[in-house]
């Protein structure tokens, strides 16, 4: 992979020639699944940002004369509540829309947290070597031995169930992926001449780490971050479902499913739509991530 492809600064500097960005765009556009994923992502983002405008009702307002109203196309449904209402009369569509905001926020926070911490740890391990390297990587091995959901559950059990703690737990659990990737790519870059040259020119270790080496390690990290978005949303929803994530009445999709458990056999819509929302969102990020990986690195193409 050419170094310029991964470096946004270099891309901006070479926009006059049909540069790597263009090549990337062409490769990406060929992948129909990835374009579909991107489309869904954009749609979700718009809905999430405009939740206040798009949603017909407040996500927590209870309509006391409309408990478990079915969706509009089913007998008994009304167009006031297009996807029906839940057991305490809240509009399902509005809750899903506000839930999109939450889910994207969860994905973003988790990915930013684990990406920054993980890449820093990986860079430090690669640069320091020796005991520091061994200590960091052994620590990551320990995290990896636990099934990720189980470790997240244990962390939440320690910290107490809340959306914030669930996000923290998921971030910790996904940390090793970024650390390992950053370390491996940094080690490969460290052996190259340009790093030696920069070092000889008198660049300090921090500058070498973050300004010289990191930009050239970004491609795999970006792909991992996209795929990490989907696993973060999935894991946070699972924690919410187990009662260990967002607490009611927060309109988080997993928490909504947990709330539907007692009466889903009578009201299929309270179960079906939040799950579909999770599936669609996770699918979009996975499709996009796969396309990104193939476009950024043809060698990895599967």
């Amino acid at each position, binding site marked *: 992979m050419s170094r310029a492809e991964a470096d946004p600064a270099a891309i901006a500097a070479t926009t006059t020639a049909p540069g790597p960005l263009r090549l990337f765009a062409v490769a990406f556009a060929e992948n129909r*699944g990835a374009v579909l994923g991107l489309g869904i992502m954009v749609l979700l983002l718009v809905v999430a940002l405009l939740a206040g405008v798009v949603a017909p009702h407040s996500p927590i307002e209870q309509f006391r004369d409309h408990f478990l109203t079915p969706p509009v196309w089913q007998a008994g449904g009304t167009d006031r509540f297009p996807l029906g209402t839940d057991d305490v009369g809240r509009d399902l569509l509005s809750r899903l829309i506000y839930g999109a905001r939450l889910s994207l926020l969860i994905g973003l926070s988790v990915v930013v947290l684990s990406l920054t911490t993980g890449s820093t740890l990986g860079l430090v391990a690669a640069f320091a070597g020796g005991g520091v390297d061994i200590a960091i990587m*052994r*620590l990551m*091995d*320990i995290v*990896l*031995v*636990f*099934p*990720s*959901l*189980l470790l997240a*559950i*244990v962390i939440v*059990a*320690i910290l*107490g169930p809340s959306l914030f703690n669930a996000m923290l737990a998921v971030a910790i659990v996904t940390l090793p992926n970024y650390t390992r990737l950053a370390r491996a790519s940094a080690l490969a870059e460290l052996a190259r001449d340009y790093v030696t040259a920069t070092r000889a020119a008198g660049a300090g270790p921090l500058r070498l780490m973050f300004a010289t080496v990191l930009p050239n390690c970004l491609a795999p990290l970006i792909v991992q971050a996209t795929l990490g978005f*989907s696993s973060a949303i*999935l894991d946070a*929803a*699972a924690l919410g*479902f*187990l*009662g*260990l994530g967002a607490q009611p009445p927060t309109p988080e999709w*997993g928490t909504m*499913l947990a709330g539907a*458990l007692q009466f*889903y*056999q009578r009201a*299929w819509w309270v*179960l*079906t739509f*939040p*799950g579909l929302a*999770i*599936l669609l969102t*996770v*699918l979009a990020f*996975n*499709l996009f991530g*796969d396309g990104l990986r193939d476009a950024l690195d043809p060698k990895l193409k*599967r």
Partner: protein
Amino acid sequence: MLRFLLRRVVLVVPTFIGVTLLSFLLIHLVPGDPIEVRFGERGVSPQRLAELRHEAGLDRPLWQQFLAYEGQVATGHLGTSVVTHEPVWSEFVTLFPATVELSVCAILFAILVGLPFGVIAAVRRGSVFDYGLMGLSVTGASMPIFWWGLMMILVFSVALGWTPVSGRISDAYYVAPWTGFMLIDAWFSDDRGAVASALSHLILPTIVLGTIPLATVARMTRSAMLEVLGEDYIRTARAKGLGTLRVVVVHALRNALIPVVTVIGLQVGTLLGGAILTETIFSWPGIGHWLIESIQRRDYPVLQGGTLLVASLVMLVNLGVDLAYGFLNPRIRR
């Protein structure tokens, strides 16, 4: 070979100590004093509390407590459940077969369906079948399985009434727990109804737990097959005039299997994570169900011991896969 074996085994030791340290810290980090929690609502006088804390060694420095804990783990003492007062180890041993039974069925399902699908997708590369299958595969990999399980119950158990909602066997049958594997025990009970009941209870959980491995197996098989099908020896086999089926199954699949088997082996951690959700949904009396219950009951010794056992198990299986891979592929032995 011996050096490779030794190196891998020795590498496991610090990881294991780290895992025990984490599970040791768990008890100290959870809210509430372990002794006070044991007394619950009844409460305990401050004087008695201090005595009990001394007896349990909780007033000693943390590092001494950790060494004592290491000693306990080494001799197999993993604490006692606060709720049932049973040793954690014996509860684990009783419930473990249920999880193994479910996991084995899920993996078998994933292989039996995923392998042929992956092969066909590779052979028919670029066809509608290939695209459809890969679309399904990425959908399966994105599945929130806790929702998937509930949807299956809604359709097959509630609407159609084909399968039971939860448990391992109907209450109408009593099967003596001999091996702990319901299917095997039911088989030897000579009661055909019991076997049928056990099977019908297994179907939905198997599909739910097997969905993500199925997606992974299909994807891995396809990509491994595509790689192998481009090799020279496949062309040679074709040129010799061998039939497509023989070339694909005997020559290509056999060589494509190594990476697929490795991936299946490394799925154990994911599978146990999935078992937590699947068992919770279907009230399947296994390890995952047990761990979630332990959190709800604040039974922290169970959570601590159970987590340690599950992590150790994953570590052992990973080590096994590693060694088997080194055995099969001499190139990675160093």
